[in-house]
């Protein structure tokens, strides 16, 4: 089974938009903590949790206990996406008479726990887990606690108790975002070590300062530490947690409060404040502008692809692009599923297998079994029937579905019916076959033409720019609508992959900031531009964005 990567990602995005919508309408609420746990929620709701929205009290359902109940918009929005409640109901958040109370409440069907009074949810979960054991039920209990919440002594009472009763049907997540209501957690009450200045990335960088895992280990828990925004890491952690026998598991998830929105990220102000409605269109645009960098390893040493994968891992690639060439569809030959199978054990980073092969319908199953998370096939070698077959197989296997077109190919009409559920579209900007080619500038024009077709056919997937992408053209590819970027020689061909990826990201970020300022100017002139910039109080963001706004002549 694949990760179901894009499916989870798209639903997380929908949920984030609903958090913004509901809190901005309500005029209060907690977006910061809703966003830090968004990926955890996404993996639970769209991959692991067993539930039935039409029968919320189904006895064998898994239980999700949101102990850090102030992040209720993050719970309610996912419950809407998952089908428990209509999305429109989110507009009633915190309103008199609503089922969506300020903190999670049994008034809303599907909510397991009245959270909000911090520190109590883990004990409650122990009760639920004990009952499941008593009744010989095999459902699992997932509990999300906060790091500020861990100041509460009851968390540690519960930590001892779950260990005493060997509750392997209980998995806790610590949403370790380093921020609580007053300030940074390490200033208010250090869980790891006291913070020396206001730079919390200092805590991230230095693993020797992380003490939280040791605390939980010493309480007798199975401790897994992950980056709580990486779906593949959450996925693996949950899989391991479920497999652990005779011991409760805590997944310590290092997260970023307000993740996805620059001005909210790592900003204590956004613990419990709703966005101003006039900023909502900008925030939504920013949410729609999340992007990913995928190095293509064939640009490296073909005799040691293992090492290229390791360089991607070290470089913190979002996923790894694997160009499969068969010597028929394209003149060159690279590797096939056997190689992918070998590489799979090296990392959990998603594998984005781009099949440049003839008759992909005959082989796609092998690539699923080899461990691909995203599989893209070429339109030139598919028709409605064969792509339909591929599409069905991939969806069943929880592998994301991609379709690619060559520079001289238009999106075929037969593909339109698949667009609403298509996960990824690769618009090739070089002729596939070899690495190191120059970006074909006509691609911009092609992308513009594609926009209306994609819109008309309700495409909600990601466009991946592939072919000759470098620091010069990546910004314009972003402006064309691409959100995933394959980097060949410009990343893998560089001595320092990590630095190359960082530069790619910074370049896209810069373009994104420009796009957002442009939008602000369009909506509310320089007044709104100033307000927008003024929100970016953490780090050097404000001066960087101001500079862009000045360069573009908006202020």
């Amino acid at each position: 089974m694949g990760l179901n990567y894009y499916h989870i990602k798209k639903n997380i995005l929908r949920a984030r938009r609903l958090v913004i919508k509901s809190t901005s309408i309500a005029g209060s609420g907690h977006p910061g903590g809703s966003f830090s746990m968004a990926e955890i929620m996404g993996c639970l709701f769209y991959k692991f949790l067993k539930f039935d929205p039409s029968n919320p009290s189904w006895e064998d359902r898994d239980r999700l206990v949101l102990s850090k109940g102030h992040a209720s918009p993050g719970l309610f929005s996912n419950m809407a996406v998952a089908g428990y409640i209509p999305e429109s109901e989110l507009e009633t958040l915190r309103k008199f008479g609503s089922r969506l109370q300020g903190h999670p409440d049994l008034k809303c069907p599907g909510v397991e726990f009245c959270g909000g009074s911090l520190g109590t949810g883990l004990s409650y979960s122990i009760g639920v887990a004990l009952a499941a054991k008593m009744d010989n039920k095999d459902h699992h209990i997932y509990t999300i606690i906060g790091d500020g919440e861990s100041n509460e002594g009851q968390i540690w009472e519960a930590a001892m108790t779950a260990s005493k009763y060997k509750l392997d049907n209980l998995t806790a997540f610590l949403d370790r975002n380093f921020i609580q209501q007053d300030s940074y957690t390490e200033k208010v009450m250090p869980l790891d070590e006291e913070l020396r200045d206001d730079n919390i990335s200092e805590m991230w960088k230095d693993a020797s300062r992380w003490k939280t895992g040791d605390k939980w280990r010493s309480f007798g828990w199975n401790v897994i530490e992950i980056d709580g925004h990486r779906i593949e890491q959450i996925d693996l952690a949950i899989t391991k947690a479920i497999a652990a026998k005779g011991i409760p598991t805590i997944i310590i998830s290092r997260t970023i409060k307000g993740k996805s929105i620059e001005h909210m990220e790592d900003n204590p102000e956004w613990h419990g404040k709703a966005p101003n409605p006039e900023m909502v269109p900008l925030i939504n645009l920013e949410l729609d502008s999340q992007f990913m960098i995928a190095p293509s390893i064939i640009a490296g040493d073909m005799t040691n692809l293992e090492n290229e994968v390791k360089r991607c891992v070290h470089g913190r690639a979002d996923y790894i692009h694997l160009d499969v060439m068969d010597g028929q569809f394209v003149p060159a030959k690279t590797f096939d599923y056997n190689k992918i199978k070998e590489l799979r054990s090296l990392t959990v980073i998603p594998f984005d297998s781009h099949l440049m092969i003839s008759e992909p319908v005959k082989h796609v199953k092998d690539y699923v079994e080899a461990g691909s998370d995203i599989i893209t096939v070429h339109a030139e070698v598919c028709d409605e029937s064969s792509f339909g077959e591929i599409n069905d197989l991939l969806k069943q296997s929880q592998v994301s579905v991609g379709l690619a077109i060559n520079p001289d190919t238009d999106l075929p009409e037969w593909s339109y019916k698949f667009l609403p559920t298509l996960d990824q579209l690769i618009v090739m900007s070089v002729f596939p076959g070899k690495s190191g080619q120059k970006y074909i500038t006509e691609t911009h024009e092609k992308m513009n033409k594609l926009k209306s077709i994609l819109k008309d056919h309700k495409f909600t997937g990601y466009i991946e720019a592939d072919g000759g992408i470098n620091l010069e053209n990546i910004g314009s590819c972003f402006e064309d609508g691409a959100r995933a970027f394959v980097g060949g020689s410009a990343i893998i061909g560089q001595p320092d992959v990590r630095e190359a990826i960082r530069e790619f990201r910074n370049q896209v970020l810069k373009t994104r900031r420009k796009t957002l300022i442009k939008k602000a100017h369009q909506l509310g002139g320089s007044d709104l531009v100033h307000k927008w910039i003024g929100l970016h109080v953490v780090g050097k963001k404000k001066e960087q964005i101001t500079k862009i706004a000045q360069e573009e002549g908006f202020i």
Partner: protein
Amino acid sequence: MKPPEMSDMRTEYAKTLIEIGRENPKVVVLGADTTDSLKTSVFGKEFPNRFFNVGIAEANLVSISAGLAASGKVSFASTYAIFLPGRAVDQIRNGIAYPSPPGKKGLNVKLVVSHGGLTVGPDGGSHQQIEDIAIMRAIPNFRVFIPADTIAVSKLIRLMANEYGPFYMRMARSKTPIIHSESQEFQIGKGITLRDGSDCTIAACGITVRMALEAAETLQQEGISCRVLDLFSIKPIDGDLLEKAARETGCIVTSEEHNIFGGMGSAVAESVSERHPVPIKRIGAQDMFGESARDNEVPLLLEKHGITSFNMVKQVKEIRSKKI
């Protein structure tokens, strides 16, 4: 009055738990390192998988009970009175009383405590819970009992086990005299008239019921006819019975081992003043804490707070002159 037969509430509680545990596999029992004292450990011997000692962690005790109840169990959580309402009121309020599954009010948790009131004795004022009734009465969805004897304990535990929802029941530390007959019925919100009378009413609960009966006997000898009520159900309180007593006897003395603010006396005053106001005198801790008293000195401690049948007699005589 002949010397009463004495009986231990905690022993009766544990015995009843085992009986209902045999009848209903959903019954679970939780404790917090006081399970030998509360005698619930014997339940654990018979049903090791349905018994949980969570250590000296009362907040944890309450929240775990709530989780079990939310999964269909009937949770009985027990420790000393001072450590439940006194310590874990947030977990009780937000974890048991507030969460209401569709069509229900609160979760199915029964908090049964021992060592209520001043008769805790030697452990001192820090351990004499005289505010629990006020705390628990103020929390929506909770029902609050104080049994007068072991017959009441047994019947009320059975009643709670069969009735969905949160209950709080406070037992006494020391052995208590048998008041009721085995055939006595107990209903939620219904007081019991133990002795009829026309000149005054004494409303009592827990250990003061026996004192009230003794006071009524003394008053009888002086030609004063005194009605005695056992108001074991403090919430809901029996408004009908109290209105009747107010109409027919014209004045009420209440007596309890609790602060006079917010306890049974307050509940009586609230009800009577709305339905048929008559003079009321509340006997109880006069807004001050208890203190250590060795077992044989407990009567002195109670006397200091006026919780005696002697004071009841005195107060009845005084209040009769204030009748409207």
